[in-house]
């Protein structure tokens, strides 16, 4: 009985995202037909590009890694009821700090890695905390301030790698740091494949966060704050403290996203390497798609990453342009919070609402 209810609830919570995915794919189909390609074949090529063989699967996982971490970070903030739009800046600052830590902290590989992880986490976390502090202390709207801080962070990171810490070794003066010593690289999971240890870190973190949010008192406080801050305060939850912690971890994990990209795949901070692929926005979408459930966020991130790697495969093998993926993603998110529900359910719910109000 109880299990049946639970299953029903699970199914009900999946209806919304699945409908959105369907509408997204339908829109994609329309766009594909517009350029005159076969819809089914194109989607087949996309699927193969994402999951076609072991190599592509690992490539998808590699791409998903920063997206999962960003999504997890944002999920914490969303759960606490704050709209952190600053993942991009937090990630970039994390990445550049991690790169510098790995370059300049003396010691063995493991020490460098740990220092880089700590630096990345702290940089992202503190940057995010700044926005949280401005909100709680001066009521500067977080939604807007995080957005603005993105520009500042990205420009500042750009300054660091084009002036004081620029890699001068190459002939062309690119805006990037020198390469990190190989001992401080995060190991690849399989030789010759792009997926690295960061993916494991991301998945483990997803599980940990799921447990914390679901079963611990800290998680309860975060959730209640997000549901109704007045209720939280009334019940003795320290609103400001929980909000600041949430923002710190939210930004910190976004910083980790940048960190593992640097340590696991770029081996240096290259300007634009994290912002151009739109990891931050994709992570945001993953968190929204999964309604800020950490495990769901991980799954959604992998799916969105698959959409992107699939689209790259599609571009290699067909005439259909890569941007189909952004179109599908955009439509998907557009409809993910939309109330597309079946009629019977609506009527039933309405009846209950009125009963409650009467």
């Amino acid at each position: 009985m109880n299990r049946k209810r639970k299953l029903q609830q699970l199914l009900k919570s999946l209806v919304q995202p699945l409908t959105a995915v369907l509408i997204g794919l339908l829109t994609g189909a329309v766009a594909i037909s517009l350029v005159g390609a076969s819809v089914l074949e194109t989607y087949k090529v996309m699927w193969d590009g994402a999951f076609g063989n072991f190599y592509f699967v690992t490539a998808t996982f590699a791409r998903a890694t920063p997206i999962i971490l960003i999504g997890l970070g944002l999920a914490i903030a969303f759960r606490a009821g704050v709209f952190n739009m600053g993942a991009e800046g937090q990630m970039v600052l994390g990445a550049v700090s991690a790169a510098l830590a790995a370059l300049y902290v003396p010691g063995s590989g493991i020490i460098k890695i740990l220092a880089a992880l700590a630096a990345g986490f702290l940089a992202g976390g503190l940057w995010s905390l700044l926005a949280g502090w401005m909100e709680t202390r001066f009521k500067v709207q977080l939604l807007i301030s995080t957005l603005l801080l993105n520009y500042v962070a990205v420009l500042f990171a750009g300054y660091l790698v084009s002036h004081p810490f620029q890699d001068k070794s190459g002939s062309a003066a690119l805006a990037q740091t020198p390469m990190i010593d190989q001992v401080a690289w995060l190991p690849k999971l399989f030789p010759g494949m792009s997926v690295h240890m960061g993916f494991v870190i991301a998945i483990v973190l997803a599980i940990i966060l799921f447990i914390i949010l679901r079963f611990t008192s800290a998680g309860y406080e975060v959730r209640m704050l997000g549901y109704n801050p007045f209720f939280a305060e009334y019940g003795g939850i320290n609103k400001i403290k929980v909000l600041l912690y949430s923002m710190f971890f939210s930004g910190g994990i976004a910083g980790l996203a940048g960190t593992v990209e640097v340590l696991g795949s770029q081996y240096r901070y290259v300007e634009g390497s994290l912002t151009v692929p739109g990891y931050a926005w994709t992570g945001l979408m993953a968190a929204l798609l999964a309604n800020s459930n950490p495990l769901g966020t991980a799954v959604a991130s992998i799916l969105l990453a698959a959409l992107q790697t699939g689209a790259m495969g599609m571009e290699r093998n067909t005439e259909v342009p890569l941007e189909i993926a952004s179109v599908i993603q955009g439509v998907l998110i557009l409809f993910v919070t939309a109330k597309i529900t079946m009629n019977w359910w609506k009527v039933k719910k309405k009846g209950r609402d009125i009963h409650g109000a009467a």
Partner: protein
Amino acid sequence: MELLDLSFFTSAIRMISPILLAALGGALCARVGIFNVGLEGLILAGAFSAIVGNYYSGSVLVAVLTGALGSVLVSLLFGLAAIRLKANPIVAGIAINFLVLGLTTFGLRAIFDVKGAFYDKNMEGLPKLDIPVIEGIPVVGKLLSGHSPLVYIAFLAAILLYIFFYRTVTGFRVLAVGKNEAAARSLGLKVTLLQYGAIVACGILCGLAGAQLSLGQVTMFTEGMTAGRGFIALVAMMLGQSHPIGIVGSSLLFGLMDALSIRLQGFSMPTQFTAMLPYIITIFAMFFLKDRGADSQLSGQQSSR
């Protein structure tokens, strides 16, 4: 080169028009209770469709109109999600930004078969309007005359919007919807219609903003050419408290900052720091926003869902 000369101010005036137009559009949405984060996407849609219109018709007027139309269509899609389907407006707005970025890049490939940017030397840009009397006045003439028509339209739109809000019945009702939607509904006001009206008007304004971007200076379209202007417009809107005159003020501030950051590059400052300036100043400006709480409910910070 002097830091602040006349051309500095004329360039500032030129730069504010897209921000001003879009911010006014955003204000209309805010006034009917919809926080529109999708301004960036709407401007981009306008910029792209203006170029498409220009390319196929060869007429600047048609180009501006198609720009507005393209933006209106996207705007309606946003309205469909946010009003009809009751999606979270912030999420829908973010989606719109992403969607339009994808659609325009896709369009560049599908229509013009190019990547990154499209330029055609046969395309004609917006004309410069010389205003008869003012043109003759020494300093003021240079400052105020010789801009594209859309620059003047932007300022005109602000004045019209002011009159609309505070002198007309429909404007009064629009304000009512934003203040208390439930009450407006219970009075039998056509809330949904007013909301769609505001969203369409916002689309037109953002479309014009986009047209100014793609036809105003160099007649071309580049991928993501809005470069965050939609978000700046959003901030300008909040800084101006969704009041048309306030928005003119805050847009002027951004225009000046923008122009200043470009000008400062000539003074051997790292470009990153000059480019940062508008954002940092905006953050500081937000500290002094009075009545900051009023809009915070609007933006639905309470919960992401």
